């Protein structure tokens, strides 16, 4: 493996090309279950980010000490440790949000994207790139959570940033934005089908954007001049 670590590439993978929620379709259970509002989505996104960052660093540190045969149980133990830490932190500082998110905080242990990153990246790379990868993957996942939460909150309740005081204290109580004057609420957006629909439309949007980017890149690529001869290359290309 080459020594130069491409941090830009890692960020791009985590946020877009290999986004855990939109491309790998991992961690769909929390994505679909708790994104009823921006506050809930942000809470779970931050918790997942914290666990992902911690577990990636720890797994990277012990990667040479753990044999291949027992690596998965070891990774799960590490992830469970960080999940418990996060759970205790949330119970201490954001108790109400902890109660709303309920079982989905402990369930971060089973989030496939975390174990996936531990096995696919952190167990093969040094600490710093692993930490960066965990951060970017967590951000990518969290941003999708936020987007789905925002869509569902706007359509379902006609508000944005409601109940943010659960996360940021009393000062955030006034952040709620009422988008429509008299809105009775489109209930299906808050119900589980709304999560599936919103996620589906987001994936479709990403695919459209990717197709556009590809088309533009192909158009930008220089076309060979007419009549120009190809350069023949032989031997190894370094």
């Amino acid at each position: 493996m080459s020594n130069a670590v491409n941090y830009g590439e890692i960020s791009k993978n985590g946020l877009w090309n290999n986004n855990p929620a939109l491309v790998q379709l991992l961690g769909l259970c929390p994505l679909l279950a708790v994104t009823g509002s921006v506050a809930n989505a942000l809470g779970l996104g931050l918790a997942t980010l914290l666990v992902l960052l911690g577990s990636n660093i720890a797994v990277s540190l012990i990667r040479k000490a753990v044999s291949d045969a027992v690596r998965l149980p070891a990774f799960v133990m590490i992830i469970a440790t960080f999940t418990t830490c996060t759970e205790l932190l949330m119970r201490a500082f954001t108790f109400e949000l902890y109660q709303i998110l309920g079982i989905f905080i402990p369930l971060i242990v089973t989030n496939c994207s975390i174990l996936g990153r531990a096995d696919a990246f952190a167990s093969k790379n040094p600490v710093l790139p692993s930490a960066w990868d965990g951060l970017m993957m967590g951000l990518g996942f969290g941003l999708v959570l936020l987007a789905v939460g925002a869509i569902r909150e706007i359509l379902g309740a006609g508000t944005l940033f409601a109940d943010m005081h659960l996360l940021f204290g009393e000062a955030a109580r006034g952040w709620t934005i009422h988008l429509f004057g008299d809105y009775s609420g489109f209930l299906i957006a808050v119900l589980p089908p709304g999560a599936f629909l919103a996620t589906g439309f987001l994936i479709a949007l990403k695919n459209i954007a990717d197709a556009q980017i590809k088309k533009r890149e192909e158009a930008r690529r220089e076309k060979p001049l007419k009549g120009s001869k190809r350069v023949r290359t032989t031997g190894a290309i370094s």
Partner: protein
Amino acid sequence: MPLLRITSPHTHSPGNTGDVMQQVMLATIPGLIALSYFFGPGSLMNVVMASFTAVACEAAVMKLRRRPVMFYINDYSAVVTGVLLGLSLPPYCPWWIVAVSTGFAIVVAKHLYGGMGFNPFNPAMVGYVVVLISFPVEMTQWAAPRTALPDGQSLLGPLSALQQIWLDTGIDGHTAATPLDVFKQNDSQLVQHLYATEPVFAAGRWAGAGWEWVNLGFLIGGAYLLYRRIFTWHAPVAMLVALTLMATIFYDGGSSTSGGSPLLHLLSGGTMLGAFFIITDPVTSATSNRGKLIFGASIGVLIYIIRSWGNYPDAVAFAVLLMNFAAPFIDYYTVPRTYGHDKPRRATDNRP
């Protein structure tokens, strides 16, 4: 040399989708007349609005998918979806309910799954259920029938109906509980008592004023479609027989826990509309005749179960959607025997 076009001598049904869909639209007329007579012009307005919305959505999606727009508009399938939705939505419901349900039916339930012939769920029922669970307040108000209006009131005229639909002026007193609502909400009273005191039953004959005639209207339309061989008898008959059987088994002569007589279940709510216009959809139902029998009968049983022990007063849409899920499964186990073979073979059977 141009070849002669020879069709099979046994083919009776019309040739293309457009003709079939036109027949279906024609067959809704008796039911629509009954609806308009008893509940005023609301249903007709729903049908018109929903049809136009459906065609507009269909055209927009076809444009987006870069398909020939007129070719798909001309098969009338979008209009039929709109007409069926308009008939199921409550009269005088606000315009945005019609728009949301029709848009959802065409764009999400039909075209996101691949369009005409590929949708696993009945688009009209998906649209109906989406608004039913999203806007329960608006969707559970049905106009009071002409013969059971309170003293001194009359049906909404076209002008006040338009006001109600577009401006949501909220004219009080023109809504009433439907017969199935009455049964759902009064489970401590004897059936006989309900029939004597509730205006919607006191003014009716068997299953609530207006409703029995609306259902008879759809029955006539369905009989016409059967006569024209638009669909086979299997699914509707199986559904109606299963519903009757369930209602007979659980009818105990009218105690407070009774689910209502078989006649009430046959002639109330969306029974006949569902039996002849919804579950006969060739795309979303089972394929073989045996499959259609199972499909229809399961819907009949589910309708009774949800009506009697579920949360919603009527259940046709939920029952149809649940069985739409099961249609491929039913098809898998009801492959007909091919001529020349002893046993039916499944598509996955690899033996020679």
